[in-house]
């Protein structure tokens, strides 16, 4: 089998014709073809550069006209966004954008991160095999669908029902949590074997104080609410003109929840990538020290992946800021908006403001600078999201470097 020795092979083969580098390169036409193809591919790659340049040129050019010609007094004064009347009030759009982004992240942050941790740390193969694709399907749902859902479900069934007494629910939530805290504390103390008279008296006093605090909290919330409370009476009896009143046909909060739902899969997938990049050894070492799974996750895996998780949140914020259709459809404002700082009223975010300016008309019409105002808002939005994305990119890169 191994009878062939090297020397035998050398002696039996004829000496090959001497090969030059040119001969190896093959015919000229082959090389030309290669370089043409390479050039084509390079050109294709350059297209993205071209697009970037075009985006920046288009934004800056039109925005520059706006910046140089607009009367700056109309852009800053909480007067409302009425582009067709020449009122380009940026705070109106910015505050709404912030409200939507914050509420959206309140939805997407915990849910996305929770889903990511569960999928990466706990889920069995079977559960993962079912739930991961579902999350991916959710990622693929078009934003107009979420807009429809936000307008026809979230707004009437969720926001309008709790929105009438939103502050009450917040109050009840806080006092409820305080009550749970008191309960837990009592139990902990109960369990404690240290039972000298002094400590018992101390505990009783503390408990009494805590209960009083919670009680006062409840009592206060209740008395503030009066007839409008879901506990004390009829929510429908709430006066129409109060801060709990919800605007029909959509509110910022409903749109924001819709945006949040859209953002969940994005946050989840980026955070899951970050968690997956944490090396196994860390988990094993932690388990080897006797830590429970939950302890390992909370105190080893999460801190190790923290930059990736931060990146996930930042990317989520950027996505929520840039989301257009949901707010446009369910945000509760047509093509102009009063200044509002309440999530339970209608408003226009930067994106929705742009979209509403462009609907229903052949070209953007209105007062002189309306068209340019579109690009000014676009430039602001572009700058913010670009900044966020770059920062998020840094965080992601940091995770990659470390492991």
């Amino acid at each position, binding site marked *: 089998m191994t009878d062939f020795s090297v020397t035998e092979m050398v002696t039996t083969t004829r000496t090959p014709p001497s090969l030059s580098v040119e001969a190896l390169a093959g015919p000229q036409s*082959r090389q030309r073809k*290669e370089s043409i193809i390479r050039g084509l*591919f*390079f050109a294709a790659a350059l*297209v*993205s*550069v071209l*697009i*970037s340049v*075009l*985006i920046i040129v288009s934004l800056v*050019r039109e925005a520059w006209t706006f910046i140089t010609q607009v009367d700056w007094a109309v852009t800053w004064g909480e007067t409302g966004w009425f582009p067709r009347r020449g009122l380009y009030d940026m705070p109106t759009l910015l505050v709404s954008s912030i409200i939507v982004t914050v509420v959206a992240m309140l939805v997407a942050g915990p849910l996305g991160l*929770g889903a990511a*941790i569960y999928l990466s*740390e*706990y889920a069995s193969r079977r559960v993962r095999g079912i739930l991961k*694709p579902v999350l991916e399907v*959710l*990622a*693929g*749902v*078009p934003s*107009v*669908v979420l*807009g*429809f*859902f936000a307008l*026809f479900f979230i707004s009437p069934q969720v926001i309008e029902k709790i929105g009438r007494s939103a502050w009450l629910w917040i109050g009840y939530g806080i*006092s*409820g949590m305080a*009550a*749970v805290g008191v*309960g837990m504390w009592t*139990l902990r103390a109960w*369990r404690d074997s240290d039972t000298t008279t002094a400590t018992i008296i101390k505990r009783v006093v503390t408990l009494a104080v805590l*209960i009083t605090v919670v009680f006062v909290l*409840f*009592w206060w919330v*209740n008395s503030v609410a009066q007839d409008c409370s879901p506990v004390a*009476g*009829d929510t429908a009896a709430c006066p129409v003109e109060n801060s709990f009143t919800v605007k029909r046909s959509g509110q910022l909060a409903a749109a924001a929840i819709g945006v949040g739902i859209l953002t969940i*899969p994005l946050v989840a997938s980026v955070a899951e990538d970050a968690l997956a990049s944490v090396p196994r050894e860390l988990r094993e070492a932690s388990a080897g020290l006797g830590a*429970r799974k939950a302890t390992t996750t909370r105190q080893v895996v999460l801190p190790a992946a923290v930059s990736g998780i931060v990146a996930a949140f930042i990317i989520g914020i950027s996505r929520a800021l*840039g*989301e257009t259709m949901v707010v*446009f*459809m369910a945000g509760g404002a047509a093509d102009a908006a009063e200044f509002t700082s309440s999530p339970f009223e209608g408003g226009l975010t930067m*994106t929705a403001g742009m*979209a509403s300016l*462009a*609907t*229903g008309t052949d*070209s953007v019409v209105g007062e002189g600078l309306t*068209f340019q105002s*579109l690009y000014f808002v676009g430039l602001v939005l572009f700058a913010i*999201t*670009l900044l*966020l994305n*770059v920062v998020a*990119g840094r965080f992601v890169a940091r995770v990659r470097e470390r492991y």
Partner: protein
Amino acid sequence: MAFASIGDIDVAARVEETIKRRGADKKVVASIWTSLAGAGGVLAIVAMFVTWYSDDRTATAWFSGFLPPIALLLVVSAAAVLVAKPLRIVGADRRVDSDLFAFVVIGGGALLMMLRQLSRGGLSDMVYLLIIPLVAWTFSVVRALGRPNRSTRLELEQVALGLAAIGAGLIVVKRLLDPEYATGGWAWGLLAGLAVVAAALAACQYLGILSIFQVTLFVALALSVIILVILLVQVIGDGWPVLSERLGDFWSGTLRSRSGDERLGISQGILGSFWIAGFVVMIAFPIGIAAAVYLEEYAPRNRFTTMLDIIVRNLAGVPSVVYGLLGLFLFVKGTVVTHWIIDRVNSVWASIFDEEQLIEVGQSTLFAGGVTLAILVLPIVIITAAEAVRAVPQSLREGAYGVGATKWEVIRSQVLPFAAPGILTGTLLALARAVGEAAPLILVGAITGRLAPRDSMFSGVDQFFGQFADRFTAMPIVIVGWVRNSGVDSGFGPAAGAAIVMLLVFVIMMNSVAVLLRNYFEKKRA
């Protein structure tokens, strides 16, 4: 197992016996607890939906004034105990004390509620609520008086929780049977809430999830799924009148100004989306895949390549509405360059056909919309295709080089075929994204209102190309328009729902195919 015998006691047998007994104990507990709480929880969830959809004012008007805070405090702390116990947050020692505490608390809370209700004169409905404290008290007294036999002991608090769930369930059933029947908002809500928690815990125990941390995480994930289900149910429910009654007409109809119009439908939207998808396939796919191949195979590792990479990544993060601005700037408003290009196209057009011009600057055309969306998805195509190309094993390339292939031959014969499933997945996702995207089209000026139907779509070459130079609409735009109109003419709501179902069928199908394809190949190659 290697246990030594100590004296007369057979340790191994003891241990085995204990394990068996505890196992059986746990099993009994789990089955009782799961079935009780599960049944109650399901009923409670059903009831929550029922109350959700009904505007029951009396339900919230049950309590007032001084009492609810105390009752709530008591019951909430009891709930805290009940939740804490099976999760071993509260220690296993001194359990009798904490049981007693829990049951006194929950019983006291319920008794206070009852007294309050009594003073208002409506006792009969409270019978159901009475069950819980009575049972709980009985149990706790039994427990406190003498330690029952450990092997037959049930996890009492779990049983009580299950009973609470059943009590809530009974109230719900009664409510379902008798619409006039109104329960107390808070009491019912708390019991229902408890039942839901109980059901969730039961489910968790069944699934082997036992820490509260894990439960929270699972709930986060499950909520996403539940939201998706609610969304689908809502959309299909809203669109059902149209889908069930006039699907055929709806399919072939056009945009109309009144929702009652017989000829209202989505044919124009489908056609527009179809052509937009065509533009994406024709423009974004070749360029995107070529760019990905360049980045992965050809690009030297230098600063320019790094910059290209960063540009592509950042382009993927640019909000879609900004692409709309780009499209508006390039095609609708028109720049010097676009004017020049359009003039050339028009002159060629005029030399072939007799018509004056094909494309008009300042017009929102299908061409403008299609190209804008192609630009929008280009970075997505590049990124996913680059990932697929990166995953091709180096040995394949080296093998091909070894037999004398040139770079392009290696790419064509080895890299692209191997990366094809990954690339296909990415392109499908991109296509689904393009078809569902509305914001850029709105900016470019797709039509949301009435659009004159074209009579002859394929009657000639000029007609065929002519439609790219015409005003257009697309599925998501149709939906947006109808949703906006539904404020004035509510009949547009169901139409929008039906259109969404059509869009979703297509988009979800594409996404699922993409995901399944990827999973299949991942599994195959792993």
